[in-house]
């Protein structure tokens, strides 16, 4: 079996969420590498969009620090404005969107604005950026998080990016036609919504971790999904692709 880091496993788990031919709202850091791995393995016809106005087929050849770096502009499929790319979200054309977050709750709602709520600010986070838009309007949302009890909480103090809001029918009641979190990929596990209420359940545990440990590190009473399993370890083809994308070994 291949040797891999936790972050490499997370990247490959994220890559598996991208299907061939999909339009993907990529985001920075881990997801952009996941997009590259997906393109090189099972999704050669995926298309990646960045909210600054970049659309790409093949990922950039150099390591990016931001989505607007010169290397992401060169050989892009389209460099345009924010409305043109985020308009694809609103038109319902984006299949998969990736976002990160500081705080997530059991309905998959994410807070990147105000810890403590906006009336009683304890920690001021940077804000939505495009996250609220991606969460509301992608057909399928993938969230990437560190698995800490203070980050996976019963109820976020401010919903920047809506998940299933209050559970069953929550999105429909808010007027959101589609979407919702399909997976939350952490450094310990993959959580997925389950049942009509779409509460996040433990779907797979990363190799080297246990369900008990994951539950212990979750701020709500995390239930396990039927058929819960171990997250499949990266395969050789996936690792080869990852090494091709992550030339400098940033994620090793």
């Amino acid at each position, binding site marked *: 079996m291949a040797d891999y880091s936790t972050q490499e496993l997370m990247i490959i788990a994220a890559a598996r969420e991208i299907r061939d031919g999909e339009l993907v709202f990529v985001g920075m850091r881990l997801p952009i590498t996941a997009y590259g791995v997906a393109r090189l393995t099972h999704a050669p016809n995926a298309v990646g969009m960045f909210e600054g106005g970049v659309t790409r087929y093949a990922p950039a050849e150099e390591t990016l620090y931001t989505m607007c770096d010169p290397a992401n502009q060169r050989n892009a499929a389209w460099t345009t404005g924010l409305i043109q790319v985020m308009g694809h979200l609103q038109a319902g054309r984006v299949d998969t969107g990736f976002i990160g977050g500081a705080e997530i709750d059991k309905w998959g709602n994410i807070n990147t604005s105000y810890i403590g709520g*906006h009336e009683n600010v304890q920690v001021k986070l*940077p804000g939505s950026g495009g996250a609220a838009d991606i969460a*509301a309007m992608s057909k399928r949302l993938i969230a990437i998080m560190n698995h800490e009890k203070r980050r996976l909480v019963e109820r976020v103090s401010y919903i920047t990016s809506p998940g299933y809001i209050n559970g069953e029918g929550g999105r429909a009641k808010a007027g959101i036609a589609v979407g919702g979190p399909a997976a939350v990929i952490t450094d310990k596990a993959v959580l997925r919504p389950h049942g009509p209420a779409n509460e996040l359940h433990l779907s797979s545990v990363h190799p080297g971790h246990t369900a008990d440990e994951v539950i212990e590190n979750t701020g709500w009473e995390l239930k396990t999904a039927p058929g819960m399993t171990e997250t499949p370890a990266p395969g050789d083809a996936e690792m080869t692709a990852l090494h091709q994308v992550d030339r400098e070994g940033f994620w090793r």
Partner: protein
Amino acid sequence: MIEKICSLSDAVRDLVRDGDGVVIGASLETAIPFAATYEIIRQGKKNLEMIAPISDASTDMLIGAGCVGAVTGAWVGNVSGGLGHNYRRAAEKQIPHALDINDYSNFTIGMALFAGAYGLPYAPVRSILGSDIINSNPAFKMATNPFSTETEPVVLVPPVKPDVAILGVQRADAAGNNHYWGSSGLAQEAALAAERVIIVADEIVEPDVISSDPSRVLVPGFRVAAVCHVPAGTHPAPLTGRWQRDSAFFNDYHARSRDVDGYKAWLDEWVFAVEGAPGYAKKLGDRLSALKIAGSRNAAHANYAAE
């Protein structure tokens, strides 16, 4: 042709007023004219309303320097560094003073600037439904889509019209006509919504360079109030085909701005102790040379001949 070339310090002095709504960049992480950020701090402008989807660390710097009364936008932080320490101090502890925060998402501030640019009374959107942004920012109104047979809520976004938009571009002529390439975020909408536009150009060229390619014009010169020639005026932000992002600079700012004293020392070193944009470039020295894009990957030709 009306000549609009002036120094950046003159442009900021004459065109940015205390209390103004100000856009610096609006292309998210690229083409942010940090030279203007620094000059606004140097001149001690007060009570500005900073309007932006994301402007990397520019807004955080201005907040720490006490220039900002309100933030109207989607994100304030440090893209590669993480949180914005000055933003946190202002929002959590009113240091250096309290801040009005008008929450938007990138798309909603985008549609607000679009409505401002093109005179729409407002823009109805499907985004931020289910988000507390609707609750924390009273600017939005809820409505029902009158074209839907079912009850379909929509969010109405009012226009945002900045007083000043300051944009970084690759090149401009003396009348303010300019070329920009690469992703542009909301730069065009911000400029066309604004009352006054300041162009910070990496290069000044003859008018026939710009008129050779009118489809590459970001903002036509008749909408531009001032053109300032500042090579690498976007540093530490990148500029497509011209300058790499100086990520180490952002990280250093992030580390040093963690406490007030560190931020003040950073400010003294990089803003107050240098003499304007030329002094800043001189201080960067070889570091700036290393960021210069030396390669050449030219766009395919495009013919505009008419006979």
